[in-house]
C-alpha cells in the first residue's frame, strides 16, 4: 500500500509540476540554506585550521592596547627578556615595532610595513632567507642600518633581482635613510597579524633609536618551547601582564585561542542555522499544508469513491500523509541539491577547500519528511473525515 501511495503522489506531482514546485519553495529554500550554512561554515573552519597550521601552533602574540604612558612605559625592550625569564615554557620573546612608509630603490618605490624585530625573529617563525641572510645580533648591537626584504617587496623594488648589497631608502618624516639590503626572505603565507611577504625587516634597536626613536614596544612575538601547553603559557603571560599593567590594556593571541574563537564563530553559525531551519519549517510547512488542503478539496470525489469501495478513514489519512511526506522529501532532495551546488560555488569563491558535511544531507531529508507529516496531518485528518456520500456527490 505504501509503495502505491508514493507512486500516486509522484504521479500527481508530475501532473502539476509548476504548482508542486511553488508549494515546495519554502522547504527547498529552507533546506538549501541549512546545507549552505553548514557546508560553508565547515569549509571555513577547516580553512582556519589550515591557516593556523601554517602559522605554527607554537607562537603567541602580545599587543599593547593603549597609548597611556603609565602602560606603554612598561611595554619596553626589557619586558621581552623578563617574560622569557619569568614565565615558564618560553623559548624566546621578540619585541616588534612597525610603521607604514615608503621605501625606494632608484626609481622603484614600495609602500608597506617596516618591522623592527630582534634577530631571533626569523627562526622563531620558521622563516628562512632565499638570498643572503637575516640580520645578526652584531647588526642589532651596533644599530646597523641593514634591511631584509619580504619576498614581494624584493620583487617590487628589484624586478631584475640581485637586491643583496644594494642600498634602499626608507622615508621617514620627509627624510630618507639609507639601509643596506642583507637578505631576501622566502615566500610565507600570512598569519593572523603578519603579512610576511609584504614587510621589510630591520633590527629592533635600529628601528627604535635611528628610524623612529622610541622606547615603547608595540607588540611581542613569543615562541614557546616544544611540547608545552601553549594555552597554559598564554594564560600565564596574561596573568603576568595583568599584574604589571592591569587587564584590558593588552591582548594576548595564540593560534590555539584563535582556534577557540573560530569554534565560537561556528557556534554562532549553528545558532543562525537553527533559526533559519525554524523559519523554513514554518514557511515550508504552511506551504505544504496549503497544497495538501487544495489537493484534498480537488480530490473529494476520489476520496468518496475510495470510501465506497472500502477505504477506512485511517487508510485515507495514511494516503494523504504519505503524499505529504513524499512531497516534502522531494522538496528536501531538491533543496539538498541546490545547497550543495551553491555552497560549492561559495567555497570556491573564497578559495577554500570544500568540506561537505554529508550527514547533514540525511538529517535534512529526514527533517523535511517530518515537516510533511506534521503539516500534512490536518489536511489528512480532514480528508479522512469526509462524509462518503457528500464526497461521492461532489462535482
Amino acid at each position: 500500500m505504501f509503495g502505491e501511495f508514493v507512486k500516486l503522489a509522484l504521479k500527481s506531482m508530475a501532473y502539476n509540476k509548476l504548482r508542486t514546485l511553488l508549494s515546495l519553495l519554502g522547504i527547498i529554500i529552507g533546506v538549501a540554506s541549512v546545507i549552505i550554512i553548514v557546508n560553508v561554515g565547515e569549509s571555513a573552519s577547516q580553512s582556519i585550521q589550515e591557516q593556523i597550521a601554517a602559522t605554527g601552533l607554537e607562537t603567541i602574540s602580545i599587543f599593547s592596547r593603549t597609548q597611556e604612558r603609565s602602560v606603554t612605559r612598561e611595554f619596553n625592550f626589557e619586558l621581552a627578556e623578563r617574560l622569557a625569564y619569568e614565565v615558564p615554557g618560553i623559548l624566546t620573546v621578540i619585541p616588534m615595532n612597525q610603521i607604514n612608509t615608503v621605501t625606494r630603490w632608484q626609481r622603484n618605490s614600495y609602500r608597506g610595513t617596516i618591522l623592527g624585530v630582534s634577530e631571533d625573529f626569523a627562526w622563531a617563525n620558521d622563516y628562512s632567507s632565499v638570498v643572503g641572510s637575516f640580520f645578526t645580533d652584531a647588526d642589532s648591537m651596533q644599530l646597523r642600518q641593514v634591511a631584509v626584504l619580504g619576498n614581494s617587496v624584493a620583487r617590487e623594488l628589484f624586478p631584475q633581482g640581485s637586491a643583496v648589497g644594494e642600498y634602499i631608502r626608507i622615508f621617514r618624516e620627509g627624510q630618507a635613510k639609507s639601509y643596506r639590503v642583507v637578505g631576501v626572505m622566502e615566500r610565507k603565507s600570512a598569519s593572523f597579524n603578519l603579512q610576511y611577504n609584504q614587510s621589510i625587516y630591520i633590527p629592533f634597536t635600529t628601528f627604535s633609536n635611528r628610524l623612529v626613536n622610541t622606547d615603547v614596544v608595540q607588540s611581542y612575538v613569543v615562541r614557546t618551547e616544544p611540547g608545552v601547553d601553549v594555552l597554559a603559557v598564554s594564560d600565564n603571560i596574561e596573568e603576568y601582564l595583568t599584574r604589571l599593567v592591569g587587564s584590558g590594556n593588552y591582548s594576548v593571541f595564540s593560534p590555539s585561542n584563535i582556534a577557540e574563537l573560530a569554534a565560537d564563530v561556528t557556534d554562532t553559525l549553528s545558532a543562525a542555522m537553527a533559526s533559519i531551519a525554524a523559519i523554513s519549517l514554518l514557511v515550508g510547512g504552511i506551504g505544504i499544508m496549503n497544497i495538501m488542503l487544495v489537493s484534498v478539496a480537488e480530490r473529494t470525489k476520489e476520496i468518496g469513491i475510495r470510501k465506497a469501495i472500502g477505504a477506512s478513514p485511517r487508510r485515507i489519512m495514511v494516503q494523504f500523509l504519505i503524499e505529504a511526506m513524499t512531497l516534502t522529501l522531494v522538496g528536501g532532495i531538491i533543496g539538498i541539491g541546490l545547497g550543495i551546488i551553491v555552497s560549492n560555488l561559495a567555497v570556491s569563491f573564497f578559495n577554500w577547500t570544500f568540506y561537505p558535511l554529508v550527514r547533514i544531507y540525511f538529517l535534512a531529508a529526514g527533517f523535511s519528511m517530518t515537516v510533511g507529516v506534521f503539516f500534512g496531518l490536518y489536511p489528512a485528518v480532514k480528508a479522512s473525515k469526509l462524509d462518503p456520500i457528500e464526497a461521492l456527490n461532489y462535482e
Partner: protein
Amino acid sequence: MAGPVIELTEVSRYYYMGEFVIKALDNVNVRIGTGEYTAIMGPSGSGKSTMMHLVGCLDTPTAGTIYIDAEDTSALNEEDLAYLRNAKIGFVFQQFNLLAKMNALENVMTPLMYAGYPMRRRKEIAENALEQVGLGDRMKHRPNELSGGQKQRIAIARALVNDPSIILADEPTGALDSVTGEQIMDLFEKINSQGKTVIMVTHDPEVSGRCKRVINLRDGHIAEDR
C-alpha cells in the same frame, strides 16, 4: 432460500434543512434474502438512492436498524463499516465513479489493496475479474479512453473483485444507450445466477421487468413490494 442477507427494520433517514425536515426515507421495513434479484423503482426524489446508501453502509439511518448478514450495523464504527463495505458489498453507480488517474486494472485492484492482498495476488484476481466482464483486452486503458459501457464493466468488475455477497447498483444503465444497457443487464443476470444478491435502482420498466422482485418507493415509503 436462506435467511435475509439484508434487513431494514423501521428505518428512517431525515435531512434537517433549517426548520424543514426532509423525510428521504420514512419508517421502511424490508427483508431481502440471499440470492434475490430486486429492482427498486419510484419517481425522482422518492428515496431510492437514500435506501441504497443505507444498505451499502455509506450512510447511517436517523432511526431504525439495518442488519447485514444478521449483523447490527448500528453497532459498528467507521473502521468496521469500511471493512464491511470492502468485504461484503459491491457498488455500481450511474456515473461509473472510476478513479480517473488509474487504468482499468489499477481501478479493479484498489478494493483488493484495502482488503490487504499482496500485490501479485491483486493483479491476478483483478485480471480475472476484467476477463469475466469481457475487458481482458482493455486492462491498461484509462477511463477516459473507454466507452460508457466499458467503463460500467470496469465498475462491475471492481464491485465483484472482493467476491462480496451483495451487489448494489444505482441506475447502472442510466447513462448508457439501450443496446449497451441490455448487455450490462445480461451481466447482472449472470452475476445473480452465480448466487449474488443484487439490488438495482431503475426507472426503466423493461429493466425491472427482468427482476424477480420489484419494490416501489413513494415519498420515502414503500408503496408496493411484489
